[in-house]
């Protein structure tokens, strides 16, 4: 569970106090309101200008950076693909974080759940933007050791029907693994349907921010 106290990003937002405790949290807000920046702070990619971010009551600056990111993994807005096949891209998260690779069966099951009828051997460059986005989601979902999954616009390239299917599958598995999901989205429908709590970053905008 994340706790933010007086977290400030100059000219963007000031969060006096915020507890991120619900299993599925959606972050909304206008462009430039700091939605992605907030995720980057939680993943320790950036440091706030001021304030403290705690994970399970410990200041994240006290945690070894790698260890923190293995507990709090992130899928960025533009899915990052690595040279190679679907298989390699799916288990890349496990490999990069020093975990054991998943079996082909587990990877195929993941593809089915994400509604991707593709062979594991297909080159990643042959996939469309929406398909790559689902691979990126599958990749973080395979990282069972993580406690928090940060998703930046995870369904921006999917149609409504696929979004509903993919997100409901994703959240079912995340719940099963007892993983918290914090996602940035501009899609109100996604927030209403899937989130237990919706945070609107517009309320924290400027130097004074909100509670």
């Amino acid at each position, binding site marked *: 569970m994340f706790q933010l106290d007086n977290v400030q*990003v*100059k*000219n*963007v937002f000031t969060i006096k106090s915020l507890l991120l405790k619900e299993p599925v949290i959606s972050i909304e807000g206008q462009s430039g309101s700091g939605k992605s920046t907030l995720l980057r702070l939680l993943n*320790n*990619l*950036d440091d706030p200008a001021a304030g403290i971010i705690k994970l399970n009551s410990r200041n994240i600056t006290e945690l070894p950076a790698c260890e923190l990111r293995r507990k709090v993994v*992130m899928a960025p807005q533009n899915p990052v693909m*690595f040279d190679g096949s679907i298989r390699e891209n799916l288990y890349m998260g496990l490999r*990069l974080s020093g975990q054991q690779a998943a079996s082909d069966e587990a990877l195929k099951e993941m593809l089915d759940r994400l509604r991707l009828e593709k062979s594991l051997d297909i080159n990643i460059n042959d996939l469309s933007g929406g398909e790559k986005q689902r691979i990126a989601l599958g990749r973080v979902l395979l990282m069972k050791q993580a406690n928090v999954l940060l998703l930046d616009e995870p369904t921006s390239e999917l149609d409504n029907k696929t979004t509903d299917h993919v997100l409901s599958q994703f959240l079912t598995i995340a719940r099963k693994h007892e993983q918290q999901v914090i996602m940035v989205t501009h899609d109100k429908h996604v927030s209403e349907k899937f989130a237990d709590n919706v945070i609107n970053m517009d309320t924290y905008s400027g130097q004074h921010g909100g509670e």
Partner: protein
Amino acid sequence: MNEDVMDFTMWQVAYAYIFIIIILVIFRFKKIPREKLLIISVLRMTIQLIIVGYILVYVLKNPHPLITVSIVFIMLGFAVFNVYQRTKATIKIDIKKIIALAMFVGISINLIFFMLVVLQLDPWYEPQYFIPLSGMIIGKTMTGVSLGVNNLLNGMKGQKEKIEGALMLGASPKVASKSIINEAYDQAMLPTINAMVGMGIIFLPGMMTGQIIAGQSPITAVKYQLSVMLGVAGTVSITVLIFLHLAYKVFFNERQQFILTKRDISKDNLPVKYE
């Protein structure tokens, strides 16, 4: 000196400059604006080689360990400076220090092994062998390190998203940079490997050619060439490895954040400037 060696007068050398005049005419005819560069290069080469020729005459006549070592260090210093100049991007002072350290350590270790174990020079500072062979090894290493530096910087800048994407998934900076380090190493080693592959078939290496012209047996020349090429390959490899395994760290801070994408939130929320 071997008596069979063909005498070579200064006039004959002067004739070789006709090639440069031909190139200058072609440049003028083709309107290629490189005349100034060519003239400066030729002048520099001529002056540098004449000076070094006279210095070597003195050094070979008066062998002394301090002189030999000093000359090698001067060559090493120029090589380091040359790498700085050859790097296209602006490089941080941290990277410059690592270039100097890697070249000093990598080249020194390899030169000591090469001179004392492979060639078994007696005395160890014998300038006739120590200086020209060190020059060859330092020169080739300089090329390798330049390629390593350029490829590392380009890789880090060109693949920012991939590196940060790997960090987001819990990769350590070393793991996140691994493919770029490997690619930079590969590119740095390529000229040396290509030279080894083509040697003897596509071209006769310079040192071997020189020895044969100087009247040395081709077999002896081959032995020297083999040893030197192996020494070069080892030195380039070790020096580039030392450089890459220290230099990638410059791109990450103590919180293992990638400084090329990290946002300087305290100021303007823009990525931190690297240069």
